[in-house]
């Protein structure tokens, strides 16, 4: 077993284990911490797959942005666990994971597990970062501009919803 294979096994176990923690934990803060572990493991898998730029994007956007935002949501809507009761249905959860996974395995087995042997194209001296930047502003410029417009719409929409929250706060006080 080479180092790469060992690293892949280690990070796969980390991803699956911490996502199972999210599935079964009662405490929302524990679940958010387990989500951090999952996202870091996925970033490591990106590095193993040769996409170091995407791993950095994953760290900055997910681990740095989305997770902190989610923790804000968790702490803002926190209620003591005794005040509400969620029925524990571990068997249904496990059954659902098994059913969906087996179904997808069967669905994808023809395509995925008989995938022809391919060879990774040689990347340039700068890795994939330079090539990605070049492709974004040449072949995929329309998509790039589309994302920019979309993010503007999201910014305005989130600001509008936040103004409703401020109005509600004023009404309460």
């Amino acid at each position, binding site marked *: 077993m080479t180092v*790469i294979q060992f690293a892949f096994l280690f990070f*796969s176990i980390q*991803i*699956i284990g911490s*996502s199972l923690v*999210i*599935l079964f934990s009662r405490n*929302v803060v524990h*679940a958010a911490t387990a*989500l951090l572990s*999952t*996202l870091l493991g*996925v970033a490591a*898998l*990106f590095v193993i*797959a040769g*996409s170091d*730029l*995407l791993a950095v*994007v*994953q760290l900055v*956007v*997910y681990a740095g942005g*989305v997770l902190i*935002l*989610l923790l804000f*949501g*968790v702490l*803002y*809507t926190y209620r003591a666990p005794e005040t*509400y009761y*969620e029925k524990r*249905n571990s068997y*249904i*959860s496990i059954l*659902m*994971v098994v059913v*969906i*996974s087996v179904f*997808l*395995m069967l669905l*994808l087995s023809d395509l*995925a*597990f008989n*995938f022809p042997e391919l*060879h*990774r*194209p040689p990347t340039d001296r700068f890795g*994939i970062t330079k090539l*990605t930047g070049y*492709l974004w502003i040449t072949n*995929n410029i329309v*998509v790039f501009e589309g994302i920019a417009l*979309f993010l503007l719409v*999201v910014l305005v929409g*989130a600001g509008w*919803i936040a103004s409703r*929250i401020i109005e*509600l*706060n004023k009404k309460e006080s």
Partner: protein
Amino acid sequence: MIPVSYYITVSILLFGIGSAIVLTRRNILYVLMGIELIFNAANINLVAFGQYDKYLNGQLFAMLIITVAAAESVVALSIIILLFKKLNSVNLTEIKNLKE
């Protein structure tokens, strides 16, 4: 060199766990975390296949998905906080309407 089928196995398991979270949990924050897991499973698949592509289409599309997921979680969290202000609950079974 890791074969593509290993990546697909990991991503299928992650997708299964994510959809189980979305379908079984009642707390809306857990549902949001499950959706993030599903996005990540899709990204692993795209990157695993995209490493053989000369034009990096899989990785560019994965970057697009990360951006859209971040925007989605911003809007979802602001709606969650607004709902919590109005209804004092994050339980999906108690949330029935968005109107006043």
